[in-house]
């Protein structure tokens, strides 16, 4: 089973062939569109991520000892970005998630989305996803 870092490295490699922003965003848009739509019943105040200009939801559940994430957004680029986080972290243990170092964000040039004032709230997404990790750890 691929580790969190394996998946990050894979994404970094995918992005490395893109020369300009158009390719990168086309990837994010296509990726965002390819992701399934989160069922309305999971779009609640608890799963909603605040601090984003678009609406973003992140739902998590425990399957055996792993946490599985499902995300959605009404903006497609945002969905692509949160989708990458899900791709990297879903299917790992709460400990792995809570302790992960998400270096791929910087490497694929999404760091500009990390500034806390940035309207897409990547920071809030990471915080939320890690909070799930910590919360599921506590339940153990």
């Amino acid at each position, binding site marked *: 089973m691929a580790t969190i870092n394996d998946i990050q490295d894979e994404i970094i490699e995918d992005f490395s062939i893109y020369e300009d*922003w*158009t390719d990168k*965003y*086309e990837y994010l*848009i296509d990726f965002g569109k390819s992701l399934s739509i989160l069922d309305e019943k999971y779009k609640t105040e608890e799963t909603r991520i605040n601090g984003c*200009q*678009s*609406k973003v939801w992140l739902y998590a559940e425990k399957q055996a000892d792993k946490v599985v994430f499902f995300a959605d957004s*009404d*903006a*497609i*680029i*945002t969905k692509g970005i949160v989708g990458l986080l899900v791709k990297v972290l879903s299917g790992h243990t709460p400990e792995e998630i809570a302790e992960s170092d998400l270096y791929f964000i910087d490497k694929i040039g999404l760091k500009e989305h990390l500034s806390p004032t940035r*309207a*897409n709230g990547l920071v809030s997404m990471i915080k939320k996803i890690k909070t799930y990790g910590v919360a599921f750890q506590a339940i153990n």
Partner: protein
Amino acid sequence: MLDIQKIRADFPILSEKIRGKQLVYLDNGASTQKPKVLIEAEQYFYEHQYANIHRGVHYLSQIGTDLYEASRKTVQQFINAKHDHEIIFTKGTTNSINLVAYTFGRKFIQARDEIVVTEMEHHSNIVPWQILCEEKGCILKVIPLQKDGTILLEDAARLITSKTKLVSVVYVSNALGTINPIQELIALAHSKGAKIMIDAAQAIQHIPIDVQALDCDLLAFSAHKLYGPTGVGILYGKEDILNAMPPFEGGGDMIENVSFAKTTFNALPFKFEAGTPHISGCISMSVAIKYIQDLGLQKIMEYEHSLLEYATERLNAINGLTIYGTAKDKSSVISFLLEGIHPYDVGVLLDNQGIAIRTGHHCAQPVMEYFNIPGTCRASFALYNTKEEVDVLVEGILRAKKMLS
């Protein structure tokens, strides 16, 4: 005719490259860029003239005080106020409105009295009144929006009554560009014995304003949307109203005499200017105003209007694009959405092409709620924008649309 190329050369930032592309700055509603004369004036002040004002007998303090007071006179003359002490330096529009809510509001508005705003207000002209209403038990009445982004004078006439103590309305909507019929609203308010405040944050840089001709009681704006510095704004008020209002903040400069037995307050305008102000900004604001006056605000208005018309025509020709705010009287703001596409996605893709617009609710969530939309993309123009930039915007939108559909 304005020489736009010459004007553009006065704004150093306009020649910046963003992500390798020529910057196209269309977020002037949020804030305008600064002319070189203003940047140089601030630098000169700090290098040669800086000291605290109103406090020292020494040479520099005197110079600073003179410049500060001269700037007040420039603002007075710019909006044609009757007296220079009717011009209060504040931190900005938000601060000016809060000042009125805390002073005029606390003193003159009681339980069950009414305050009237419109549905298109910026949050800065909603929240201070909600806080006041919460505290005092007064009531906030809202003149409703129409589909084209205007309000109806019939509605205003119905809502402004003898119970109304204050009407506080936006002159130009930052989210829709609508120019409100403030002359009529002022007359309506006065006919019912109410006072009226104008939020001129989006008007002062586009429309010549004469507060005596308008006969408004209070008026607020920010320097940073007027090609001036951040952190400075103006509250204009008629002398008798400002005199009747209690002080806002207590502190230095706003007092006449302080003792533990009794403190007396300074006269206007100092009564409302407690503490050391943003001295360099208050001074350089007048440089920005003079810059605009030299060009002529009337000419600026006409030029910006031609830009708006051109941009409206070009954007309307884009399939699936809807413009929000289609009033006959509009200022240089175009709010739009592409069908089935979130405004944020458009904003990101335009940003990558060097085009700066704003996306979101523009601090006017009730407007978004009215149209039942998550927000809009907003292009807002200033005197240095060009038709070529509108063309770049249109190309950029088409490209974003292609990528997103």
